[in-house]
Every structure is written in C-alpha cells, then in structure tokens.
C-alpha cells in the first residue's frame, strides 16, 4: 500500500512537472521545443500502441497514416489555401478508410506477415507520392511560409505547440485508458496472448483488431497533421519514410508496449537522447550520433526487454507473462 502511495505521489509530481514544463524552460527555446517534440512523438507512439501494443499486431508501416495526416494538412493549404490544421480531419478520415482497406486482408495474416504487409503498403505509398505532382513529387510541399492568421498555428515559441500536443495526447491517453478498462481492452489483450484461444472463447478477433487498427490510424494521422503545422514541410521521405514507423515502434517498446504510459516514457527518453546526442556530437560529422543512440537502445533492449515500465510493474501480481490464464478475471488485477 505504501509503495502504491509513493507511486501515486511520484505520478502526481510528474503530472505537475509536465503541466508547467514550458514555464521552467522559458529561457531556453531549445529545451522548450524539446518538450513539444517529446509530446508529438508520444502521440504517434501512443497511437501505434493501440494496435501494436494492446492488440499485439506489430505494424511497421504506420508512417503511411502519419504521411496521410501530414500531406492532408499541406494539401489543403497548397490547393485550397486553408489553414493546414483544417486538413487534420480529412487526413484522419482517409486514414481510417485506408486502415480498413489494408486491415481487412492483412489482419488475417499473423505474426511477421502482418508486419511485412504494413511495410509494403507504406513503401508503396512513399514511392507513389514521389511521382504525384498533386503531392509535390519528390520535392515535397511546404506549408504557409509566414503565418497568415492565428489558425495557421505558426508560432515562434514552442509553448503553444506544447500545450496543443499535450491536450491531444491527454485525449488519446484518456481514450486508450477507457478502452483498456473496458470490454475491448480485455478482448485485445486476449487476442494478443493467443488469438486462437480468444476466438475459441467467442471473441470476434478480426473485428476487434480492425477497430483497434482504424482507431490507431486516425490518431497517427492526427500526429502527422500536427507535425506539419509545426515544421511546415513534408516530402515523401519525411512523411512516409520507414524510419517514422520504426521510431513509433521503438519508442513504445522501450517504454513498454501495451501499457498506457509506455510510449510516453519511451518518447521522453528517446527524443531528448536523439536531439541532445545530435547537438553534442552531430557537428563532428562522423555520424557518432547514431552510434550512441543505437548503443543505448541495445543496452535497454538487453536489460529491460519488456520496456522501462517493467521496472515498476515487477510485482508478484503482474500476470501478463502467463499467457494461458490471461483472459478473464486475473487481468483486472493487472489493470489496477
């Protein structure tokens, strides 16, 4: 009980820190921006977590939805002169549609085959986008160079971005939490542990996987639109590149895939690590950044294979590893 109290206290403290972070870093634009970057990455990784973590369907092609979001935002600006953020709902709708189109045939595939199919789709879209004049071809498209009004969401300070991203992330995590506690959460975890067992107990596995995939796609797309409003540029590589998909997976896995706060924790470690190592070492020009970055990932993967949150979760009540009995009652103990 007392450890749980302490944990709650720590969580409360972290929540307060997250809320006032921009005030603490107001003197340093770089650190202030770093906070926004962490939250943006956390939105993407948390969105991936719904299908990749909870449902255990490891998509390595989520960049396709991210790119849809980013391109929808920039396309409504380029072709209709709307504020980029107006493209967000369009991107989300298209992504949900695409997720359904991809998901129906590919979610039947299991294990690595699903991952491979998602990579294939993302790469295909990347290549197609680089030949489409409407999408700016290989050169990409830029958002408004100078803000035309408040709706363009173009700010010098990172603070407004920080709070916009924070609100979106809070909404996404709230939704994920609600799903996790509800019927769907149990079904997803059951599917993850053993799809065959879940089906035999009457869970409509295909249906729930598809729902998770579509929901995940929508929020990944929103992350893409937010990315565009902040950076103001997207080309096939920065929209649909495989590195974007991989980063979502790595962040979620590092913090703890299938756990509510796992992706956020992964992002809070990897994004600063990436930025700071690049700032400190990048200028030397030896590619040292990625050596250090990679080494740290390897070390964490070696010693904490189920993510950093497993440090906290390592209690006798955590039954997640025991696959056969993980449907039904015992899981609720875990959800507390």
């Amino acid at each position, binding site marked *: 009980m007392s450890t749980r109290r302490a944990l709650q206290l720590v969580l409360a403290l972290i929540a307060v820190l997250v809320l006032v972070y921009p005030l603490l870093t107001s003197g*340093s*634009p*770089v650190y202030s*921006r770093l906070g926004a*970057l962490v939250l943006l990455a956390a939105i993407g990784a948390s969105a991936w977590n719904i299908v990749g973590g909870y449902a255990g369907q490891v998509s390595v092609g989520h960049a396709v939805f991210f790119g849809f979001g980013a391109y929808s935002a920039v396309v409504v600006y380029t072709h209709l002169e709307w504020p980029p953020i107006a493209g967000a709902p369009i991107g989300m709708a298209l992504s949900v549609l695409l997720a359904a189109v991809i998901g129906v045939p590919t979610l039947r595939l299991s294990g690595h085959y699903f991952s491979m199919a998602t990579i294939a789709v993302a790469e295909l879209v990347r290549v197609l986008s*680089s*030949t489409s004049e409407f999408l700016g*071809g*290989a*050169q*990409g498209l*830029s958002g408004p*160079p*100078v803000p035309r009004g408040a709706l363009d969401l173009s700010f*010098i300070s990172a603070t407004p971005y920080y709070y916009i991203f924070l609100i979106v992330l809070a909404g996404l995590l709230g939704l994920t939490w609600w799903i996790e506690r509800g019927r769907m959460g149990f079904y997803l975890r059951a599917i993850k542990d053993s799809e065959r067992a879940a089906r035999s107990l009457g869970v409509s596995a295909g249906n729930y996987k598809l729902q998770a995939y579509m929901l995940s796609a929508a929020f990944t797309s929103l992350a893409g639109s937010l*990315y565009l409003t902040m*950076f*103001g*540029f*997207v*080309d096939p*590589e*920065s929209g649909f590149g495989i*590195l974007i998909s991989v980063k979502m997976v790595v962040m979620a896995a590092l913090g703890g895939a299938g756990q509510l706060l796992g992706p956020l924790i992964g992002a809070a470690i990897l994004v600063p690590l990436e*930025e700071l190592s*690049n*700032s400190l070492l*990048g*200028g*030397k*020009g*030896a*590619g040292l*950044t*990625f050596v250090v970055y990679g080494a740290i990932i390897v070390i964490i993967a070696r010693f904490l294979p189920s993510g950093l949150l497993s440090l906290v979760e390592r209690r006798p009540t955590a039954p997640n590893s025991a696959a056969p009995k993980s449907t039904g009652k015992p899981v609720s103990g875990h959800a507390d």
Partner: protein
Amino acid sequence: MLRISRRVLVAGAPLAVLGVADESFAQDVVKIGAVYPLSGNSASAGNYSKMAMEVGADVINNGNAELAKILPLAKGGGVPGLKGAKIELIFADNQGTPAAGQNQTLRLISEEKVAAIIGAYQSGITVTASAMAERYGIPFVTPESVASNLTERGFKWFFRVTPVAIDFAKAYSMFLKEQKAAGRKVDSVALVHENTEYGNSVSSVIAEVFAKDGLNITQKISYSANSTDVQPQVLQLKEKNPDVAIFISYTSDAILYTKTMKELNWKPAIMIADDAGFNDPSFVKTMSSLVEGLISRSAFAVGKPGTVPYIFNELFKKKADVDLDDVSARALEGFLVLADAINRAGSTEPAKIQAALKATNLPADQMVTGYDGVKFDDKGQNVLASSLITQMRGGQYVAIWPKARATADVILPYKGW
C-alpha cells in the same frame, strides 16, 4: 550586505557599459552556423562541403599570400571589418531530415548565438531550416539548394547563391547561339529527359528559355529512368537526326543511352548532358571513352594556375585528398559570400548583416565557382549565378565556356566513341 551590493553596483556600472561597448566594437570571434547532412544518405556531400568551408575560414583567419592578391579577405588576421575577429564555423548535422534541420537551426540561433546561418544542402531541409531563421530574424544563406519555390516565399532573411534551372537553360542557350554564330548548325534541338521531378522541371525550363531565344526544339522524348531498354528512343532520334541533343538523365539511364547510341551508331553533332547522371563519378569512370566531346555543365572547374578556383582547389586537396567538386565548391562560395557581407556589415548584428548581404556585389574574378559574380535580387536570388559549360576530354570534364574562365577550346562536332 546592502552596502556591498551597492558598492559593487556603483563600481560595476561603468565597467558594464564599457563591456557592452567593447563587445560591439571588437569581437574575438564571429560565429557562423552551418547546417549540413553530416550523416545519412547525403553525408558524403555534406562532409566535403564542411571541409571546403573550413578551408575558407582558415584562409580568412590565417591568410594566404597568393589569394590575398585577388581576395580582399584572404590577407589573414580574421575579419577586418570586425577588428580582426576570427570566424568560427559551428556545424550541425541535419541528419537528412527536415525536422532535425529545423531543430538544429534553432539550437544554433538560440544556444550558439550565431550571427548567420549557412545550409542546408537538401532543398526540403533548407525550407524548414530557413523558416526558423526567418522567424528569429537571422540571415540564412543557401549555397546549393535549387528548388524554385525557395525564393518565392517572401522571406526577408533568405539568400541563395547557387544558379537554378533557368540559369542552366540560359547558359545552354547562349552557348548554342555562339556556336551558331561560329557557323555550326543548331537548327533542330531534341530534348531527352527522364520523367520524374528533375527531368520534367529542367526540360520545361529549357524549352521555355529556348523558345524565347529562338532555338527550335523539334523533338521531345520523355522516358523512365528505370528503363532497361532505350532502343526505341534512340531510334526515334536517329530517324529525325537533330543537330543538337540535350539529355537530362540519371546515372543508369545515362549509361544505357551511351551504350545504345554506340550500338545503333547514331550521334548528334552537338550532344549536351545536363550534369547529374553524366557527371556521376561512376559514369565518368566506366563510360568516358564512349562520350569524348560530350558537353555538360558544372559550377566548378579547376581553372588556370593563379586563379581563385585553382588555389582553393590546391588548399582543399591538401585537406580532403580530392578535388573540389560542383557541391563543395558551391558551399565554399556561399561561405565566402557570407563572410564578405559580415565584413562589410562591420557588426555581428543580424540586421546589419542582412543589409550587407542585400548590397553584395562580388566580381567574377573573386569566384571559386563559375558564376559571373554575386548580387542578390529582391527575392534573395543571386542574379549573376551562372554555370560553366564543360566538355569531356580524355576521361575528364574541362571548362570550355564562358571564354573568360575556359581552360580549353570547344571541339565540335561530338566525337563519341
């Protein structure tokens, strides 16, 4: 306690004023931020550009007797306009992503307090990096990004030194008109281009400029750079037999065209290749014996001994073990343009550097690259940016046009194999 702090204040005030005044008159260093791809796909280009700029900074800081005869800034002892402040280049890795480019630009501005920024090689990254510099009001010079929309954004702090597609097209046009004046036939021109962004945009700009200049494009052939067979295209050319053929190609297709033209034994009297594939070291290595007399373009050619490009190339070779090339020479040029502006600004204040950049007027003989000089228009584009025209001679390209910077005469018709 109070008394002490008061005394400190009283004593400190004049010192502080002196300190501030001191700083604005004599700086020991002036920091220039450089955002380049130092890792990732384009790392090689970025790292050579970095070395080229370091050679430039070394010449300004420590001097070079030979260059000092031509370049006012090469006398050594730092930037004269800033009382001998040394130039310090601060490099940041854009990692080949627009996001990293923008993040690093912010760091250079807010943490390193650079006076100006140079970068960022890839056009897409220049878009995001320069947008950050624009928001903070810091001059941003791009020595090499060619995307046409970069100068169409209405930015006040953005300057581009490199020539763009229209400059290449103008160079080809002028070159061909000179050949016409010299009695060679240029009545029919064929444009052969690969069908993605690069090929499409360059060919349409060439078509526009040629139409204005009265050069007849009689044939346009677009093809996919991944083709494994270009016989139909070459046969089309053979049938019409144009006087001039211009190729806009990547590497593998350039090789394919070269082989196929030999097989089908057709060659135009003047064959022009727009840089890219035909200038790729792997093309030059394997195919150069089949394209003797091929005409291409480059921003850089070594030039005659005693000229700026020649001396810089010698310095660069000592550091990097290779010659300056199209990309690294343009980076060095951009750096020298910025250094010249900072010198004339006599200040590290961004607004004064911006004003000095706007007033830039550098003559052709001070150029490392083959430009006619440097002078910016209202959009920040260098209006004197132009291209050298080169010709393949015994395995390497030599400068043949314009006359003033040529190291060899034009030899026509095209010999091929």
